[in-house]
C-alpha cells in the first residue's frame, strides 16, 4: 500500500472524544491490547492524526506512529507498535524464502505459509467465539490458537526472525489457506522499509 515514499502532511490534534472512540475501537479490534492500552494511549496524551494518500489516516502520539486506518476500515498497527507489543496481535509466519518478496511489497501467497517454515494457526483450531476474546495467543511454535477469518488484521512474522515483518488484512481465512494451499493471503500490506515505515512523523 505504501510502496512509494510518503509526503509529510501536517498533523492535526484530535479531540478527546475522538481519542476515546479510537481507543474503544482499537480495543474492540485487538482485545489482547487491553492490559497495555494505558501505555499505548495515555489518557492525558494528545493524539494527532495525519492524512496520507489513498484516504489513509495515520495516528501519531508524540511523533511516534501508532496505527493507521484506511477510510473507515479496521485500525492497523504501525510496525513499530507491533515490535513493542508482539504478543498482542494475531500472527502468522512465513518461510524464509518469502521474506524478500514481502519486503518488496508483493502480495503474500499461500505457499509461503503452508511450507515447512511457515506457521498457520494450529490444526483443528476453532474460529473466534463470543466472550473468549482474551483466551487467544501463541501456542506451540509460533502458531496462533484460533483460526483467523477473512478480513481480519494480521501480523506477519518471519522464519528465523524475532520481529514482525509486515502487517495486513487477510483476504482469505486461514482455514481456507490450509484447505486450498494457493492464492493470495494478504494484499497491500504495510511492511518493513516501506513509505509508512520511513515516514518521519
Amino acid at each position, binding site marked *: 500500500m505504501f510502496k512509494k515514499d510518503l509526503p509529510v502532511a501536517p498533523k492535526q490534534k484530535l479531540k478527546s472524544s475522538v481519542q476515546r472512540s479510537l481507543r474503544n475501537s482499537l480495543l474492540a479490534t485487538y482485545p489482547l491490547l487491553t*492490559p*497495555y492500552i494505558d*501505555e499505548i494511549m495515555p489518557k492525558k496524551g494528545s493524539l494527532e492524526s495525519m492524512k496520507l494518500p489513498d484516504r489513509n489516516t495515520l495516528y501519531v*502520539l*508524540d*511523533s*511516534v506512529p501508532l496505527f493507521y486506518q484506511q477510510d473507515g476500515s479496521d485500525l492497523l498497527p504501525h510496525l*513499530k507498535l507491533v*515490535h*513493542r*507489543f*508482539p504478543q498482542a496481535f494475531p500472527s502468522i509466519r512465513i*518461510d*524464509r*524464502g518469502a*521474506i*524478500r518478496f514481502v*519486503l518488496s511489497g508483493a502480495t503474500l501467497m499461500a505457499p509461503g505459509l503452508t511450507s515447512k*517454515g511457515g506457521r498457520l494457526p494450529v490444526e483443528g483450531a476453532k474460529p473466534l467465539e463470543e466472550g473468549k476474546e482474551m483466551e487467544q495467543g501463541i501456542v506451540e511454535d509460533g502458531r496462533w490458537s484460533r483460526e483467523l477469518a477473512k478480513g481480519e488484521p494480521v501480523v506477519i512474522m518471519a*522464519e*528465523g*526472525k*524475532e*520481529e514482525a*515483518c509486515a502487517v495486513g488484512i487477510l483476504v482469505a481465512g486461514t482455514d481456507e489457506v490450509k484447505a486450498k494451499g494457493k492464492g493470495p493471503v494478504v494484499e497491500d500490506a504495510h511492511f*518493513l*522499509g516501506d513509505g509508512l*515505515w*520511513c515516514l518521519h512523523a
Partner: protein
Amino acid sequence: MADTEQPEAPVELQSRNVVYCGVCTLPPEYCEYGGTVKKCQEWLEKNQPAMYERIWSPEALEAAASSLSIDAQKRAAKDAQKKAAKAEAAEQKQATKLATSVVTIKRIERNKKKFVTAVIGLEAFGLDLKKVAKDFGKKFATGSSVTKLPSGGEEIVVQGDVSDELEEFILEKYKDVPEDNIEFVDDKKKK
C-alpha cells in the same frame, strides 16, 4: 535517521524496546534485505556488538542457508545484489545532484533604489524553504517569504538588498551548501 532506539519508551515492563539499524532503519535481523548490507554490518558491529555476533556469526548464517534450497539461495543472492546496486546507484545520483545543483541569489530592482533578494534552488539541499525563509527574516529583520515561481518550483524572497550577507549566512548556517555552487545574478528593471 540517527535515532537507533525507539524515541519514546515509557519505563514499564510490558513495552519492548527494539533496536533499529542506524543505516537502513530496519530491525538488524532484516538488514540483509535492505540493500545496504555492508554498511549495516559495520554499523551493527560498532554499535551493537552483541547483536552483531548473534546475527552475523558463521553458525547463524549457516543455519539460515540450510533452510533454503540451493536454487532459491542463488536467486535470493542475485536479488540482493541487484538491490544493493540499485541502492548504490541512487546514492551516487543523489551525490551528483548535490554537486551540480546551484543556488542562485538574485538581486532584483524594484524601484530605482529599492531591491529584493531572491534565493532559488535551496530545496535541492534538503532544506525546508519555509523554515529557511523564517531564519532569513530573523537574521536580517526584514520580510522574507516563500513564493511560487511561474516556471514551477519555489523561491525565497527577502526584502532589501542583502545578497552579500545572505551568502555568508547560508554558508555558515547550512554547511551542506558548497561555496562554489552559489551564484549571483543582478536583475535590473528594464526601461
